[in-house]
């Protein structure tokens, strides 16, 4: 009785809470993790990259509708002029682009973007004091930048000290000189890490700059409640930018707004979640315009063919299929005294793992079994290629015997490290343990928080571990560098795989432009890795992203982080479908 009375009072109060008046086209988006700062130099994950890309811009970005991903100018006026030796990039910058209005500028009016702003922004990236997570993008690449970084650390240089490889030829022309040709340099310039900031803003806000993002982008930060939401409103001084008029075949249905001025929405609210249930429920009741599909709700929304069930389709719920440029794998620490020395042992373990069941049980059959590190839709992926590691316990046992460990005799119990403490991770590790126990290889499962796991990997303390690698840029090289000897721990080569022949192939590939010749080298390298088995490749993931039919132009795609400016709402449809959802 008392509880019922309390409930009544509370619900009445909720009902009486004033609602926010209409603010034009308002898109409700989401992120599944908190963002620590809004500064492009730290944009190394999907979450900070997404929000930064709504506020800041770089020289280049990926075309929203063309697949495979295609680079196009963003703040650059055109694609760069590249010297014959592929080392000098001359880039014209768009005129009449202005930073967002902010008290940091004279009279609070954002000033015009200049070529020197890029030089300043990239020096910030190199400045050790900023501890920029994205420094690797330019590390060793631009003439004189590493030296400037070292001199700055010693107090021998400052931001006025010129860097030989970075020149502003005039207000709107930038010249970059590389130490060596890099066929993915433009991809790097399309990464949010390299987006431009204004010196005045950094000077004004100092160490608090990460809370005061001011860029040239389509949206201005209006409100940021950490761990809760980010509110962005249309930038009134945004440069003239239009919705694309061309598309690939699969995105032809998204050309309705072709030629319209961007951004299409007046306001974007990005809700930040830590749990999947509230995301799912907020999506189902129409609070969110798009969502994510938790594993446990997958069967509720999709049928066995992975199509949306009719009851949801009638309510205007749609699903976007996203092929992720990633690979999941189990790696061996090649410096481990037993695992590193016995190739046949590693090959046996690869044969003893049923990848198809992993795909079915742990990924709801959404994805493809991986036969190498390079995922589909990425340069160097060969769809017809399959590695020799079919699930075959007899063969695994033979290989184990040949390695000198019949039925696992003589082997220690290996530590298997999980990257986090989630139920999924535990179940997955239990599955691997059971599969390998069948051939006599015993594991001790070790649960870790992410910092613990990261520490173990980087200090070479994990014998066996599972992880995933998502492309930083759409090129096979980004996956093959995971086995390059110069990148061993604490670098990304967490398997600590060192092989001169592989290194030589990798170095040769760096000199070649994308094309048949380079792809052949990539294939050789993949075969090489599969023979040596520093890692067992598991799955290239496919993600299903639910969205409401009223959300128009939704085409969220990995590596395209600036998608919010293309989104809009069909309010009529929204009103109609909301009734069906309630």
């Amino acid at each position, binding site marked *: 009785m008392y509880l019922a009375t309390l409930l009544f009072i509370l*619900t009445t*109060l909720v009902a009486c809470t004033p609602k926010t008046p209409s603010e034009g086209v308002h898109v409700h988006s989401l992120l599944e993790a908190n963002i620590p700062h809004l500064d492009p130099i730290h944009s190394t994950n999907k979450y900070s990259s997404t929000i930064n890309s709504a506020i800041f811009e770089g020289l280049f970005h990926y075309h929203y509708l063309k697949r495979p991903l295609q680079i196009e100018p963003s703040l650059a006026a055109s694609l760069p002029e590249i010297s014959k030796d592929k080392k000098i990039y001359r880039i014209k910058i768009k005129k009449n682009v202005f930073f967002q209005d902010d008290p940091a500028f004279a009279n609070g009016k954002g000033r015009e973007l200049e070529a020197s702003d890029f030089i300043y922004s990239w020096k910030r990236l190199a400045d050790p004091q900023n501890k920029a997570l994205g420094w*690797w993008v330019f590390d060793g690449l631009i003439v004189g930048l590493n030296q400037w970084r070292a001199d700055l650390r010693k107090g021998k240089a400052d931001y006025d000290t010129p860097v030989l490889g970075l020149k502003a030829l005039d207000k709107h022309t930038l010249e970059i000189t590389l130490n060596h040709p890099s066929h993915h340099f433009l991809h790097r310039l399309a990464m949010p890490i390299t987006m431009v900031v204004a010196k005045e803003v950094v000077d004004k806000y100092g160490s*608090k700059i990460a809370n005061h993002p001011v860029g040239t982008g389509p949206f201005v930060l209006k409100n940021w409640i950490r*761990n*809760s939401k980010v509110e962005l409103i249309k930038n009134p001084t945004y440069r003239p930018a239009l919705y694309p008029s061309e598309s690939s075949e699969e995105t032809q249905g998204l050309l309705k707004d072709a030629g319209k001025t961007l951004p299409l929405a007046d306001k974007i609210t990005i809700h*930040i979640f830590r749990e999947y249930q*509230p995301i799912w429920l*907020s999506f189902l009741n129409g609070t969110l315009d798009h969502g994510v599909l938790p594993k446990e709700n997958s069967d509720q929304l999709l049928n066995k063919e992975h199509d949306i069930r009719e009851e949801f389709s009638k309510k205007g719920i749609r699903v976007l299929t996203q092929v992720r440029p990633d690979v999941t794998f189990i790696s061996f620490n090649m410096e481990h005294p037993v695992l590193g020395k016995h190739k046949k042992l590693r090959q046996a373990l690869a044969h003893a793992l049923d990848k198809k069941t992993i795909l079915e049980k742990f990924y709801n059959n959404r994805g493809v079994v991986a036969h190498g590190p390079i995922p589909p839709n990425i340069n160097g992926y060969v769809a017809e290629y399959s590695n020799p590691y079919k699930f075959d316990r007899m063969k695994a046992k033979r290989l184990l015997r040949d390695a000198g460990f019949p039925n696992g005799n003589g082997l220690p119990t290996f530590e298997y490290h999980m990257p986090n403490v989630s139920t999924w991770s535990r179940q997955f590790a239990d599955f691997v343990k059971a599969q390998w126990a069948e051939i006599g290889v015993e594991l001790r499962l070790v649960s870790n928080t992410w910092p613990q796991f990261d*520490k173990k990997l980087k200090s070479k303390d994990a014998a066996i571990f599972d992880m995933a690698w998502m492309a930083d840029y759409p090129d096979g090289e980004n996956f093959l560098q995971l086995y390059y000897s110069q990148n061993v721990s604490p670098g990304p080569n967490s398997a600590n795989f060192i092989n001169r022949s592989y290194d030589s192939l990798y170095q040769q590939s760096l000199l070649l432009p994308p094309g048949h010749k380079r792809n052949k080298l990539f294939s050789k390298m993949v075969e090489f890795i599969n023979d040596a088995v520093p890692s067992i490749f598991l799955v290239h993931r496919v993600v299903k992203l639910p969205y409401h039919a009223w959300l128009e132009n939704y085409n969220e795609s990995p590596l395209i982080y600036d998608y919010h400016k293309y989104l809009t709402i069909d309010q009529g449809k929204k009103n109609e479908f909301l009734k069906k959802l309630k």
Partner: protein
Amino acid sequence: MSLIVFLIFHVVGGDPAYQLAGKYASADQVQSLRQELGTDKTLFTQYFVFLGQIVSFNFGNSWQTSQSVLQMIGSAIGPTLSLSLPAFILGFLLSLFISIKSLDSKKSILRGLVPIFCLALMSVSFVAYIIFFQYFLAYKMNLFPINGWDHSLLHRWSYLFLPWIIAILVSLGPNVLLLSSLLSKEMEQDYVITARAKGLSTQRTLWHHILRNSLLPISTAVSLQIPFLITGSLLLEAFFGIPGMGSLLIEAIQSADLPVIKAITVLSTLLYVFVNLITDILYTVFDPKVIIQ
């Protein structure tokens, strides 16, 4: 305490230099980050720096967000207290009311049912309550928002009602059992029997005599819960999107952000000590026979 926190972090925690160096770390970068963070110094030196921070109450900036740690705590403490304080007070008062009502009841069935009801409430996990109520009250019945937060005092309450209900419900089981047990023990005292023999009603005996004489153990039990009001309810904050101390702490642990972890731990400990001190002082008010020497 400071030594335990320090050792736990350094023995089982991650290496902040690795975290800050990112996935393309090089050995040189990691080393220079360690120098900048001071984690290359001996554990002994680092511990003394930590003690200095506690004394000066200056925990510096977060390694992850570059914000002042105290500023971060300042922003998170409001949402946490908005969630935990009303739920705690209401939950406690409701528990007290139910306990007294059940003891006051002439029907022995009610007396028997209350503990069963409490045990049933306690046997369900906290997460199950959250999932169930969020699904039925917020989603199915649309009585409350599913998730969200607003810093303005006017708007934030609508997001807090459902978490309050859950927090109160979860606290009812243990609180009612504890209070009932404390009060019923007191009911067996001679002065109660005398009072009843003199014709004092059960209700009057309970409210005016038993409750007053039980304040000592009740205040001890209550004071133990107060520090948790600050550290927040991680689960409620996570499911309902409340940007409080629980979220801040878990975020810091996940990113090896030592300055934040240290500050929250030290603050909670200081609060714990302070609340214990206040409780001891209150003893003298509740029971004049108690003298603090």
